């Protein structure tokens, strides 16, 4: 089991441990994630068809409507939210979404160092992400 530590900036506090779901593409929550199923439905997105439920969701930043924040709230209410969010650059849509849904969030993280399936430990107090990988 190899371990690396990535350093970021804490945005929303809280700790989480879970499996990484990683994209190199910005994600629009409004119209891009179904609040009733947690499935990513944004057309042409590399995570299309994947569920955000209980994963550590890693993507560069959000895009699209500011109302996308509400989608994160609905996901949390429906028990479908990611356990934590790791961004390269925090943008207002995702920050507000993480705040209202109470999802730990860190930005300033080099997400190219994270692969889908890695086990991540995210610390929203210190801004540290521990990446654990098999082999």
């Amino acid at each position, binding site marked *: 089991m190899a371990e690396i530590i990535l350093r970021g900036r804490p*945005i*929303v506090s809280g700790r989480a441990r879970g499996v990484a779901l990683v994209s190199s593409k910005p994600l629009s929550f*409004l119209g891009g994630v179904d*609040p*009733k199923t947690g499935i990513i439905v944004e057309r042409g997105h590399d995570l299309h068809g994947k569920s955000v439920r209980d994963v550590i969701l890693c993507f560069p930043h959000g895009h699209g*409507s*500011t*109302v996308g*924040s*509400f*989608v994160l*709230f*609905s996901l949390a*209410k429906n028990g479908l939210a990611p356990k934590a969010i790791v961004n390269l650059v*925090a943008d*207002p*849509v995702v*920050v*507000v979404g993480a*705040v*209202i849904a109470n999802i730990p969030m860190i930005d300033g993280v080099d997400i190219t160092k994270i692969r889908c399936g890695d086990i991540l430990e995210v610390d929203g107090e210190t801004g540290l992400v521990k990446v654990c990988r098999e082999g």
Partner: protein
Amino acid sequence: MYLTKDEERIYDGEMGWAYQVSMRILVKLGELYGARRLIPVESAHISGVSYKTVGDAAIDFLKALVESGGKVRVKATINPSGVDYNYAFFRALPEDLLERQREIIDLYEMMGVDAVLTCTPYYVEPPSCGAHVAWAESSAVVYANSIIGAWTNREGGPSALASALIGKTPDYGLHQPENRQPTILVRVEANLGSEADYGALGIHLGKILGDRIPLIQGLHGANETCLKQMGAAMATSGMTPMFHMNEYGAEHNKSLEKIAVEDRDLVRVYEELSTSDEKPDLVFIGCPHCSFDEIKLVSKLIEGRRIREDIRLWVCTSRFIRGKAEDYVRLIESAGGRVVCGTCAVVTWLKNFGIKTVMTNSAKTAYYVQLLDGVKASLSPISECINVACE
């Protein structure tokens, strides 16, 4: 960020969840953008009202705020919805859409929001010049900053709502005088005539400017409608929150980057936005929502004529302006047009009305209806739009 004792208590949840979550939104955004404190706002204008654009997710959040006793602390208004319940053709929309839309409006009203349902709240009650406000709705943001002289960042729906509940906004960006200065000089050498030309100019500029603030020279004799169209379009294709303008050769910071706009730039925008030269199903005036003067102009253009049976004419505005312009409204309606309130072609379900092509004098609408509804559009001055709509 520095918080007062009272603000801290709200942050810690002493006033309940609605205020706590609102305060957290403002503080997190403030930290993100380097604000050092919160400042009071005179008003908030909230986007995220049409069920078509916000969906069920907004209902969940609004409900939670209402259940935890959230009430606005400053004058707060909301953007257009997807329905004008006074017309039978809107009431014929699917039951669930009508109900959900009603629910959203009711939830805002339960929090004490004034349901003006317009993107031009400044016609209902203009903010004071120099006042800090927290406005969402990008066209109103540009209008407030550039034409009225109120100060606002380009808020999103959630942050404007948070400001409405707290009565404050984080002090960063356009709330600070040094960030309101122009950073690029635009010389308009193109010939500008109608309001549609100004809209085309706005679309062109938005693409180039990103979030920079331009000083625009060469807008000779542009009236308020033209500037409203230009600002709305700039904010549609770009992130620009305000513009300045003056005359050619007037004093300006010599070190500003300079760009010029020529006729061919506008021609290119017209070509991009006009994807149909067929007869439109809908002629739409009122994006952003019409002023009293625009309603009056439409009625003058229609006087003595009739709207074709096979074309719908929608003139969209707020219920407030419709009430003030009653005589002109009567003339438009008796000619077969519809003065529709509290919604518009962009935020309602065009497809449900069988509308496949829209003709409009609004560059913003021509841009959005193609993206959001997959309908074809054409951009023309108001006089041309009314000519096409009439027999």
